[in-house]
Structures are given as C-alpha cells and as structure tokens.
C-alpha cells in the first residue's frame, strides 16, 4: 500500500487542482466584491471552447488562450450587467450564464465543425516534467497575488469594502459598482483560464460539457475556504486529491469500484459544506446593492 502514494499521485493532484484554483480565485474575487457567482461553470466552458476556436483559426495556441479569456470575460460582463446594473437575482442570472455556456458551446460546435461531441484536435500548451502543463504553476502563483491584492493594496481594500458594506463604501466615495464590474469580469477571466487549462493544457481540444461540475466544486472551495485565498487553495487541493484517488487507484490496479470512488469529490464537498459552513462567514454585503434606488 505504501507505493500507492508516489510522485505520480502528487502530479495528478497538482493537475487536478490547477483548474479548480483558477476558477476559485475568480469566484473569490467576485464574491468578495459582493456579487454571488454561480456562473463559474459556464464561464469555464466558454473559456475552454473559445480557446480551442482561437487556436484552430489562428494556428497559435497562445492567441487561442487570448481568445478564450476574452470569451469568458464577456460572459463575466454579461453576469455583471445583469447582477449590478439590472439588479436581477444573482443566482438566476448565474444559472442563465451556465445554460448559455453549455448551449452556446454545443450550438457553435455543430455550426463550426459540424460535430456534436468533440472539436477537432488543436495544438496544446507546452508541458514540463512529463505531463504537467505550463499553466499549472501559473495557477499556484495567482493565489498569493490575489491575497496580496485584496489585503495589501488600496484597490483590494476598496473591493472588500464594496463586499462588506456597499452603502458605507459608497458614502466614502468608493465607486462600488465599478469595483464590482471589474471583479466579476476578472472572475470571468480567471474561470476562463480554468477552462482553457482543461481544453488546451490537459487535452488538445474541446468536448461537450468537459468541465463536469468543476466550476461548482471551485465555488464550494471558496465557501469551504471561508472566502480566503489561502483557505480556498487548501480546499482546492483537498478536492483535487479526492479526484486524483480514483485515477491513482486505476493506475495501480487497486481492486475498488471506480464508479463510486469518482463520487468522492462531490460527497466530500457535501460533507464539507454541511459540517464547516457554520464557521464560515460570507461577505456581509453579498448580494446587496450600493444604493436603494
């Protein structure tokens, strides 16, 4: 059993954690600014898809990343417009973005390539250490950056003020809506990176619904990590470990039913939010608006 835990398992965990970390950092920024974001899943799908589209047409995977990020940022902008300007229900708007993500990608898949399940293969981002994508370390670097931004910069403190007490923040001259727009669009960018990690980092193409709930798991990690970048990172690693176990079990030919083992991350998330949510405290102003009008 001791050879079950080896360097391969560690690599698998890092690979599984990276897309979760990207999306979780995006979700964290949005929620810390006061906008609920259950749209991470849809933003990831849109990023993953347009990353492939960009790479396909421009024959350059880095330009593809740019296109993918732009697509996801637009999804973020739509979410922001609905939640902030139109003041629509933030969960309803998020659900719509998720449906738009799965609908639009499948629709365009059939329009562009006449395929219903998968895009053609495109170039993949470079890898190192065998099978670890170049984007993996990027994900881990983003965590301290987000922490530093939120806690050590003036803008970051303004974001927190917008998220904790939007009306008070507004009264001292902070443009709450502007900060919220920036954070929600940035959450699209980061979630889009998470999707791109899947389609251009791990694989080399898009397949229908390829995010498989990772956006929601990332959101659970934000809650489990108490809306704190370091805590969210820990939660992402935990969920990634749960996803890595079935893969490791298969590789080591351990005699265990992988169907049920694959349910582990979801079960773990359930237990986590049932048991630990009492201790976690969402931003005070989450879902509240800066002005009453």
């Amino acid at each position, binding site marked *: 059993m001791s050879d079950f835990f080896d360097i391969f398992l560690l690599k698998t965990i890092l690979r599984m954690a990276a897309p979760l970390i990207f999306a979780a950092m995006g979700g964290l920024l949005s929620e810390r600014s006061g906008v*609920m974001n*259950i749209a991470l899943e849809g933003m990831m799908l849109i990023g993953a898809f347009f990353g492939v589209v960009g790479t396909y047409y421009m024959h350059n995977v880095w330009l593809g990343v740019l296109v993918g990020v732009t697509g996801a940022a637009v999804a973020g902008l*739509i979410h922001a417009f*609905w939640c902030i300007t*139109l*003041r*629509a*229900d*933030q*969960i*309803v*708007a998020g*659900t*719509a*973005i*998720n*449906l*738009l993500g*799965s*609908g*639009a990608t*499948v*629709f365009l898949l*059939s*329009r562009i390539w006449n395929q219903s399940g998968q895009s053609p293969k495109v170039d993949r981002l470079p890898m190192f250490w065998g099978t670890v994508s170049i984007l993996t370390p990027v994900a881990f670097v983003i965590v301290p950056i987000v922490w530093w931004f939120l806690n050590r910069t003036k803008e970051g403190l303004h974001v927190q003020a917008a998220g904790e007490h939007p009306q008070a923040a507004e009264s001292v001259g902070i443009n709450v809506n502007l900060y919220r727009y920036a954070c929600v669009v940035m959450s699209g960018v980061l979630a889009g990176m998470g999707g791109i990690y899947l389609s251009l980092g791990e694989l080399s193409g898009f397949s229908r619904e390829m995010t*498989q*709930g990772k956006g*929601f798991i990332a*959101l*659970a990690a934000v*809650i489990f990590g108490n809306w704190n970048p370091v805590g969210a990172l820990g939660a992402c690693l935990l969920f990634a470990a749960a996803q890595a176990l079935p893969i490791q079990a298969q590789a080591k030919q351990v005699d265990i*039913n992988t*169907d*049920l083992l*694959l*349910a582990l991350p*979801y*079960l773990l*998330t*359930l237990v986590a*939010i*049932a*048991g630990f*949510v*009492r201790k976690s405290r969402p931003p005070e102003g*989450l*879902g*509240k*608006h800066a002005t*009453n*009008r």
Partner: protein
Amino acid sequence: MLLRKHFAGVGKLASTVITSFLAVLIALAVGAILIAISNQNPVDAYRALIDGAFGGRRAIAETLVATTPMILGGLAFAVAARASMFNIGIEGQLVIGSLCGALVGAADLGLSKWLYVPLAMLVGGVAGGIWGAIPGVMKAKSGASEVISTIMLNYLAFRISIYMVTSAGAWLSWVDPQLQATKKIAPNARLPIILDRTRLHAGFLVAIAAALILWYVLFRTTFGYKIRTVGLSRGAAEYAGIAWGSTITKAMFLSGLLAGLMGASESLGLLGRHYDNRSGYGFTAIAVGLVGRNHPIGVIFAGLLFGVLRSGSNAMQAQAGTSKELVLILQALVILSVSALASLEYLRERRARTAAATPTAAAQPATGVTA
C-alpha cells in the same frame, strides 16, 4: 376600496403575464438574430419549428409528450422557489426518481396494472423527494447553501445511476449493463398510452393533475400558506410561529417528489427503461418555473411553450438546417430576459411606492429566490 384592491390584483396578474410574454418574444428575437448570423433564414427555421410541433395529430401528441416533463419539472422548481429555495438539483432528483421507478417496474412483481403503475410512480416520486429533502435538511441544520448542495447531489445521483446500470449488474438481475439501462419495464408497470397510435402516455394527465393539486396546496391550505410566508420573509414567518427549517425541508421534499415523478413518468411512460443519459430537463425546469412565474397554472403554459420548442427543434434541424441546440440557447435567453424584466418591474414598482410614501427599509429584488 374592495374594488380597487380587486383591480390592483388583476393589474398585477396582467403585468406578470405580459412580462413573461415579452421575455419569450425577446428571447425568440435574439434567437432569430443568432440564426441569421449563422447564415440561415430565421423565418424558415421558426416556421419549421412550429410545423414540427403542431403539424398533425402525431406532431401534437409528440408536443404533449415533450410538455409532460416540462410541467412536472417547472412545478418542482416553483414549489421550492415559493419557499425561497433555489432547487438546481431537479436533474439529480429526476435521475433518482427515474432509476428507482424503473427498477421497481423492471423487477416484474407480477402485480395488476392498477396496483403496479401507482406503486412504481410512487417509489420514483418518494425517492426523488428524499433526494430533494437532503439539501433542505442541510440548510435547516447548518445553513449550507442549497445552491451548492443540490449541485453536488446531482453529480452524486449521476454516479449512482451509472453504478446501478453497469457495475451493479453483477449482483442485480434487473439491469442490463450492455445497454447501460435497466431491464425492460414490465408491461403492467408501464403508464398507459392515452391516444391511440401515438406515444402520448398518462404521464401527461399526472402532470396536469399535479399542477392543479399544487395550486390548491399552495393557495388553499395552511401548509401552502406556510411555504409562501417562509418564502417572503424568514423573519416574519418565524415571528408568526412558523417553523422555518421544517417548512423548507417539506417544500424541498415536495419539489423532489415532483422531480421524481417527472423522471418516473419518463421511464415508465415514454422510454420503457431507465437509461443512463442526461436529458438536461432538470435545468430547463428552471426556465419553465421562471417563465410560469412560479405559479402552477402559469407553469402549465410555460411547460407547453418549452414542449413546443423541444418537439419542434428536430423538425427545425431537419427542414431548416438550424442546429437543434439553439433551443438550449433560447432557454438561457428566456431566463435572462425574464429575470431582467422582473427586476425592472420590481424596481419601477418600488420607485412608485417610495415616491408615494416615506422611504422604507429596502428589500432584495423579489424574484422569489435567495441564496
């Protein structure tokens, strides 16, 4: 005074109906633009869609077949939303309902039709109800957001479904691992066909009956009153002595029950087995509930609308060449426009109110759901 109150009610109903209509029109208009951008004729596409949905007895029957799960799912969303619970877990609840109902049917218990059909439906419904009640209990006990818990329960339900129709074949003779489905449901457990030489099954009647019963429960019983009060304000409900935790749990059970019936009616009525593939109907249900403004009668009409979109989309793809996935985009557009219009309507109302009276403490936009 009474008269004015009465007319105010009519005005609200009218504006609600108009909002839903407008939202659908906006979604269809944006959809038309999308069709035009992809170099096709939107008029042809929509004509093919309508033709596919209503062109003849067979087509109409198919539309009602597609409408059945839409109504049940919309009701499932609506009853939870009335208690201010956002049930994104309908997809998982319907999978559990379909699986359990179909397993009972595939077991071939040798019962008479009058006993077997209700039993299988009931098992499916209750199984979905239990699956739906879990997030209710979790929220009541520890405040866990149902948005996350229902989604996780969806993925758990999918894993259970895959396991049951594949690996479980080793010890369970009611499943067919080759097909990734249960064995054929016994003829005596199948919901009967209600229109000759079509696929229209009694699930449609179940859906209509469920809508009428839910209307009665919501608006004519104490339990319904509790659900609606809890949905409007948790604080006010608790002040009035209504137990918040148990009410949201019961509402979620009811929601899961309807979702379970939706799944069971598909497998027992339409498909004849539980297949392990995702219909995505659980997410469409959200759009149905929102367009029906979480009112059981509104949901019947909204369900019909989405049934038309579903059943017409195949004809649209075959005749006009427009990808049937457009319907998925239309769903998202409908949700976006309903939520935007509802919120604008709410803001306009509140502005009128604050202009007329002294400002009162501001509340959240009243789409009927919170986190």
